[in-house]
């Protein structure tokens, strides 16, 4: 189950975002794509998830061009949590999660035992089993995001892409969601790729960082090697110190301040 971009040029209409981009997604690991606003990280994720067709080059899923394969077949290998999804009015949690089974279903096989098992497992893994019969509209933001993740898990794909999954969540729910992703990655060997905004969360939870700037990948690798003060200064134009996260012993970015200086 490999996912790679080979020499792709991507953009919208005539505006090119990235040119000649190469990326091999490490199998069975948690990759975070980081970079400043408008650096093309979401665009890259859209290309990897075949929502955006490269104008040149190709995205390879198991060595074959992702756009040449049947859509449902791709959806059985590659799951995606998009930035914005709309829960239909009046849908319950279990019904929404069950929709993740579409790529496995056929016209006359709409609800097999395997479908049911996958939905039960996905709801258990995300801790929404108790909400099963609730209307999605009535849930809190954090619960709702967990339901969407459950839908992606029910798809049972070896690769899962997440486009800014922590946006709109409060800090507790952000941590909860990322821990969930790491757990799935460790326990089921799911290859995860997430676009993240928070550098510290990326450095803490991902085991592979991809750093982008102005449409290009400028660094990638183990967060402990990649996340340096020079890199943050170069990519984000932010002066900082990097210290050791006392909880996880991962790099912690401490931005410098020219205004607030307290003597402690």
């Amino acid at each position: 189950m490999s996912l790679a971009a080979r020499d792709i040029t991507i953009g919208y209409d005539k505006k090119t975002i990235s040119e000649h981009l190469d990326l091999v997604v490490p199998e069975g690991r948690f990759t975070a794509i980081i970079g400043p606003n408008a650096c093309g990280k979401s665009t890259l994720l859209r290309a990897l998830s075949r929502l955006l067709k490269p104008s040149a080059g190709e995205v390879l899923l198991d060595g074959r061009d992702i756009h040449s394969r049947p859509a449902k077949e791709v959806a059985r290998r590659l799951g995606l949590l998009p930035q914005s999804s709309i829960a239909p009015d009046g849908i319950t949690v279990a019904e929404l999660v069950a929709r993740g089974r579409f790529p496995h279903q056929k016209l006359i096989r709409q609800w097999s035992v395997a479908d049911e098992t996958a939905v039960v497992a996905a709801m258990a893994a995300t801790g929404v089993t108790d909400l099963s019969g609730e209307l999605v509209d009535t849930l809190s933001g954090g619960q709702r995001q967990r339901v969407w993740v459950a839908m992606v898990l029910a798809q049972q794909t070896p690769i899962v892409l997440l486009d800014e999954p922590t946006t709109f969540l409060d800090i507790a729910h952000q941590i909860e969601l990322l821990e969930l992703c790491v757990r799935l990655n460790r326990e089921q060997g799911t290859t995860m790729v997430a676009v993240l905004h928070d550098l510290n969360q990326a450095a803490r939870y991902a085991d592979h960082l991809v750093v982008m700037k102005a449409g290009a990948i400028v660094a990638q690798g183990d967060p402990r090697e990649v996340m340096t003060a020079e890199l943050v200064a170069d990519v984000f134009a932010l002066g900082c110190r990097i210290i050791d996260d006392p909880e996880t012993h991962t790099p912690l970015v401490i931005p410098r301040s020219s205004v607030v200086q307290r003597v402690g």
Partner: protein
Amino acid sequence: MSVDFGRRVLVVRPHRNVSARLSVRPALVCLVLVLAALAVGVLALGTGEFTLTPSEVLRALGGEGTRAARLVVVEWRLPRVLLALIIGAALGLAGAVFQAITRNPLGSPDVIGFSTGAYTGVLIVTVFVGNGYYLVAAGALAGGLATAFAVYLLAFRRGVQGFRLIIVGIAISAMLSSANQWFIIKVDLQAAFAAAIWGQGSLNGLGWSQVTPVAVTVGVLCLLLIGYGPRLSLLEMGEDAAAALGVRVERTRLAYLVIGVALTAIATAVAGPISFVALAAPQLAQRLTRTPGIALVPSAAMGAFLLMISDFLAQRAFAPTQLPVGVVSVGGIYFVWLLVRQARR
């Protein structure tokens, strides 16, 4: 181990490779709607200048009873009832498709200008060619399809988005309505009158010769809809979510639009613009069934019921004067209610 869906669900698994999950409430609602539509149908078959009791009607349908009863019921009245049911279902489906694609309860074949365009087509045909039944039907088809196509092209920018489709549709409709008005004022009275009658939408004067082509074409379109499975519901979750689940969004949406327009085209060609059914049926069905999003089968059942009962009322309310079914203003009342509700949100 079973999943709590928050509503009563029936799981059928006769074979390892054959399975289905059915929500009980929508299934019951559909059953009741179909039975109610059939009951009104039986009433309609029995009423008119030659009155029959429901049991006489059923006997005539079964091939028994007097020759006169069979003639009136089967030859004269049955085609109209069948057409009301089929066209009602077709309009319900068309409305459901448009509302799901545009994710808007105001999305209907009308809103994208189909009916207005069809009317323009009919006006042009009656004025310049003549007002035979098939001529008018052809004019309606050509006008409607041309308008729908124009709206699609104008609304297309990196794919079609629901809201833009509606806005462009309203703009084109407004232009065409004024063109229609101008036409009616300018042309001779008789042609204007003929076109205006068509413009009310009516099942008057339909017979067996229309039933077979309508049933076959609507049937084929239904098969296509079945073939696309639950993709319409997946599209409702947004383009990215649908694509991630393995739906080819742009192609599928275009297919649905074509099916929706074709269903509307058949209905409009046969019976004129009976717009309210497409607008109201999916929403009413959703309120009754409480399905997530717009569902096709309940919308079809509701459409058949609505058109059946509206046509029955149109025929009987001011008997012996038969009103065109479009006059029965379920549509208008519903529309106001919908707007008020939307505005309150």
